[in-house]
């Protein structure tokens, strides 16, 4: 009898340990996957790192035939589209965040707008690109005719507009979260002194949430840097250095998307992977900093 019980308890003990081990092991797997991603990118971009070195970042010719891989045009394209998208979307995203975080926190109006923002986040990148190609491109072309610049239609500006729409839901959800965390006693104190809502928002809420809002913008920027499909469809895919916001260009992600399957030669593939490594490192740094700021803000 006693042996039976102890046998059973041993069995349970074993299962208990196995269960806890499995849990811990699976947690280790995620960390290992992440490290493996980094090292896979690094090792595969070594040939290009060795052959091209720093020229990768300042040379402007990208010519796979003569083995010249200068990624400056794509770097400029990536930064230009992302920052322009951020500039376009920020006023709107902050407005929507204030709308949902302060004016309409609950009720049917809030529900409708929340659902719209969620849906906006749910539309796939490729559909944004498709829509942009058939609706936005003709509009931009008309605008370019009026401004007397070459009417490509596709280009940096068009991609930035689509990117701005795509990152809006992301920064809205972060900013709204931050705005809703402003302690109510601060707001109430201001109201009791006779402040209007406008004054409470500009003098209490925004200064209080400054760091959180900044983190939201940073994370949205990280999102924009790596966005691929819509940009690939709308940016024009030229290998020249962009001359202005209306000129066609290319981003790192779209170059990878366009050329990776066709790349022949070790250095060509490796140069494309090096761009992937760059995107990975930048996105990771932005993400970690942004998340840290938000975490610190939440703890306060």
């Amino acid at each position, binding site marked *: 009898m006693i042996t039976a019980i102890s046998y059973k308890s041993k069995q349970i003990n074993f299962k208990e340990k196995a269960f806890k081990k499995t849990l811990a092991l699976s947690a280790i797997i995620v960390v290992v996957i992440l490290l493996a991603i980094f090292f896979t990118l690094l090792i595969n971009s070594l040939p290009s790192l060795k052959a091209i070195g720093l020229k990768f970042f300042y040379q402007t010719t990208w010519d796979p035939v003569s083995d010249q891989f200068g990624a400056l045009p794509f770097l400029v394209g990536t930064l230009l589209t992302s920052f322009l998208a951020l500039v376009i979307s920020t006023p709107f995203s902050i407005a929507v965040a204030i709308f949902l975080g302060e004016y309409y926190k609950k009720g049917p109006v809030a529900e409708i707008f929340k659902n719209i923002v969620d849906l906006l986040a749910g*539309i796939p990148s490729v559909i944004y690109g498709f829509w942009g190609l058939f609706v936005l491109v003709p509009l931009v072309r008309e605008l370019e005719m009026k401004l007397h610049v070459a009417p490509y239609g596709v280009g940096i500006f068009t991609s930035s507009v689509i990117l701005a729409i795509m990152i809006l839901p992301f920064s809205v959800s972060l900013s709204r979260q931050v705005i809703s965390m402003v302690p109510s006693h601060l707001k109430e104190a201001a109201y009791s002194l006779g402040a209007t809502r406008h004054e409470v928002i500009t003098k209490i809420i925004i200064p209080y949430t400054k760091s959180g809002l900044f983190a939201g913008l940073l994370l949205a920027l990280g999102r924009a840097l790596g966005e*691929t499909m819509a940009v690939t469809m709308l940016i024009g895919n030229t290998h020249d250095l962009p001359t202005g916001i209306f000129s066609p260009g290319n981003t790192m992600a779209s170059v990878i998307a366009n050329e990776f399957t066709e790349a022949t030669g070790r250095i060509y593939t490796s140069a494309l992977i090096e761009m992937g490594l760059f995107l*990975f490192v930048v996105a990771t740094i932005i993400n970690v900093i942004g998340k840290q700021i938000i975490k610190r803000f939440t703890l306060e």
Partner: protein
Amino acid sequence: MEMVLEAELEKKKKLSQSRLADKHIGRRNKKNIFFKGLIVTATVISTLPLLFILFYIFKQGVGALNWHFLTHLPNPVGEPGGGVSNALVGSIMILLVSCVIAIPIGIVIGIYLSEEKRSRLGYYCRLAVDVLQGIPSIVIGIIIYEWVVRPMGGFSALSGSVALALMMLPSIIKSTEETLKLLPESLKEASLALGVPYYKTIMKVIVPTGLSGILTGVILSIARVIGETAPLLFTAFGNPFMSTNILKPMSSLPLIIFNYATSPYNDWHQLAWGASMVLILMILILNIISKIVQRKWKVQF
């Protein structure tokens, strides 16, 4: 006499002050109203793109959408009609396989993170999940190309599934963790106090209680990756024919939208609009299902 005059003066002074205050308040009120108007206008403008996009896709896609469209292969260039059955089947198969890979791993890691709130491994794991979530999807494509496609010697639906699974993982982990964290400690303690072993407490008490939250997270993560194109470009690759072999290239809805949208042919654009509409409807339905699950099976404490 003088007293009266002084009182009069005082009165006048007060009056003008209050008038000044009135004016000041009026200005502040106007500013307040103007500001609200600005916010509301900007918010309404922000929602316009969604309405435009949905409207346009429905307008273009509704004509293409019928039974024929869902059950036939795409026609070659020059022949109008045809369907996207290969992409529909491909999308569903790729997603099913990625669910099989990602859901168990994601839930197990989520359980670990909700249990180990302060351990060092938990901290690094959480950090890794955050970073994983932020990796551009095109980079995931490169990684899976190096990990799966190259060793296997060619593009395959399986590699596409692995790529999508990698993209689903962070959101499944996060939703599981968040759901289980919200369950009261007393629930676990009650079960343990009855002598139920730890693993049974987790599997039979904690996980079932949080099931609706976990399921919602899983459905939303499917909705998020169903339209992912970039990681499939160098993995599943696409296939103009019907294929159900997961070791061979396979088509999927986002891939044919990309290929047909960027082609110069009108018939193919029509197919792409139809496919976009199918994709958006699938995403809408998944979102609605997640809301229903959330509402129906909600466990409250």
